[in-house]
């Protein structure tokens, strides 16, 4: 449906069919110059039901490829609403990602340092094994296997605790994120009468899966009343998760752990290769 008229005041809007609108705007454009302010402008909206996010993305690409004017915008209120509702979860995910990087770096440093001390403490053992004929490469393999076994035990224990604790911990953190987002939104509303998404007071969201194209005609103002009302539907944040550890996460955990174990193990291997049994046994004290 389309409607010509003043866009900022809904009372001035007239809703009519596409054919009528086209006829009116074409006639007006033929009579007046298209740049003239006296020409009647139209605001054309189309609603399409696409079903899935993938279809929506495909649709967006297709209409753009087919030459949709830049004056038109393709948007989905459902997806926008979902994205806004997932904002605290996304923030939490980002925070967890950074935290993980820090933990991995600190963990790697601690593991390497601990391994240096542990190898030094076991210097005598290395000396004896080498003196009675064990090849250094075998001693290195022995140490590496020990580190790997410890790493695997740590993965099993850590993975189990993580799986059990992740949901309540995530929900607790998510709840704090939501409170933070709501406080921020309220502050914005109190200060500027709108939140940081440009939305007015909260309104219930339209949950239908749809896409729409908005025409601003010759006017530069593109936001429609309908679009605004949907942007206001921010209050329905995702407030809980039912599952935050899956096989991919566990495999990532295993991979990181093995990587850290290899890095730490290499320190032992380098030390073992440099040790001379006679020197170790001679400097036993």
């Amino acid at each position: 449906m389309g409607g010509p008229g003043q866009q900022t005041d809904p009372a001035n809007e007239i809703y009519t069919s596409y054919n009528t609108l086209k006829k009116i705007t074409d006639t007006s454009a033929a009579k007046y110059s298209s740049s003239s302010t006296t020409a009647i402008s139209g605001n054309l909206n189309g609603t399409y039901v696409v079903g899935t996010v993938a279809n929506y993305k495909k649709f967006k690409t297709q209409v753009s490829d087919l030459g949709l004017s830049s004056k038109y915008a393709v948007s989905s209120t459902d997806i926008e609403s979902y994205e806004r509702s997932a904002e605290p979860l996304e923030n939490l995910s980002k925070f967890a990602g950074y935290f993980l990087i820090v933990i991995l770096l600190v963990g790697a440093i601690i593991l390497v340092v601990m391994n240096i001390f542990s190898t030094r403490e076991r210097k005598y053992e290395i000396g004896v094994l080498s003196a009675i004929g064990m090849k250094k490469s075998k001693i290195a393999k022995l140490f590496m296997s020990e580190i790997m076994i410890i790493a695997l035990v740590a993965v099993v224990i850590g993975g189990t605790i993580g799986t059990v604790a992740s949901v309540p911990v995530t929900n607790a953190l998510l709840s704090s994120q939501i409170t933070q987002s709501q406080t921020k939104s309220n502050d914005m509303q109190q200060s500027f009468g709108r939140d940081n998404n440009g939305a007015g007071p909260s309104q219930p969201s339209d949950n239908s899966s749809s896409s729409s194209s908005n025409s601003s005609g010759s006017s530069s103002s593109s936001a429609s009343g309908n679009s605004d009302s949907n942007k206001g539907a921010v209050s329905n944040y995702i407030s809980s998760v039912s599952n935050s550890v899956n096989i991919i996460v566990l495999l990532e955990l295993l991979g990181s752990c093995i990587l850290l174990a290899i890095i730490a193990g290499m320190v032992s291997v380098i030390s073992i290769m440099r040790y001379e049994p006679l020197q170790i046994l001679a400097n036993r004290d």
Partner: protein
Amino acid sequence: MEVLKLENLCFSYGSKQVLNGVNYSFENGKIYAIVGKSGAGKTTLLSVISGLVEPTEGTIYCNGEDMKSQDKYEYRSKNIGVIFQDFNLLTKLTAKENVELSMEISKSNDKQKIDKGEIERKAYGILDQVGLDRDEADRRVLKLSGGQQQRVAIARALSYGPDIILADEPTGNLDEETQEEIMDIMKKLAANGKCVIIVTHSSYVAGCADERIELKTMKKSTKKQ
């Protein structure tokens, strides 16, 4: 029969020459005592023979084969059994486990199949030969006396059946009675065809040897029968 031959053996720590052209032949079935003043290079000679350090010059022939042509780890776990002055046992393990470990290393270097049951039986047998019963064999090394630890070290050196036994001051930390017991074991080993080379300061140990070698001069003096 000659089992070990040293030919023009030299060793130096930096600019300090410790061994200077040592030539000697060792036969099986005999006990050799290497004596000399402190710093004469006795322990260094033992380390060179055991393959723990490489000579700066010269050649060591073990059973006619140049040591350089052998893998030093295989050589240490097959041809030579070393009894260290401080025993150098793995203190977290039991006496039996120390002996088993040595056998496993030797078999592994030789790419032989490791039969845990057989190794355990042999370990108990060897420990029994050196005078340690099952109860003592199953004790952690730290809970054994000095004499018992020395016996474990001897058992470990014997575990893979080497032809040559090298012992660095094997009675250094022991009382007279235990010294005699240890030397009895050494005599039995020589009687069984092993070549036993002992580095010592003790005149008692040197007196038990078939040949006494003064390191500075490498002068040989044979025991009067």
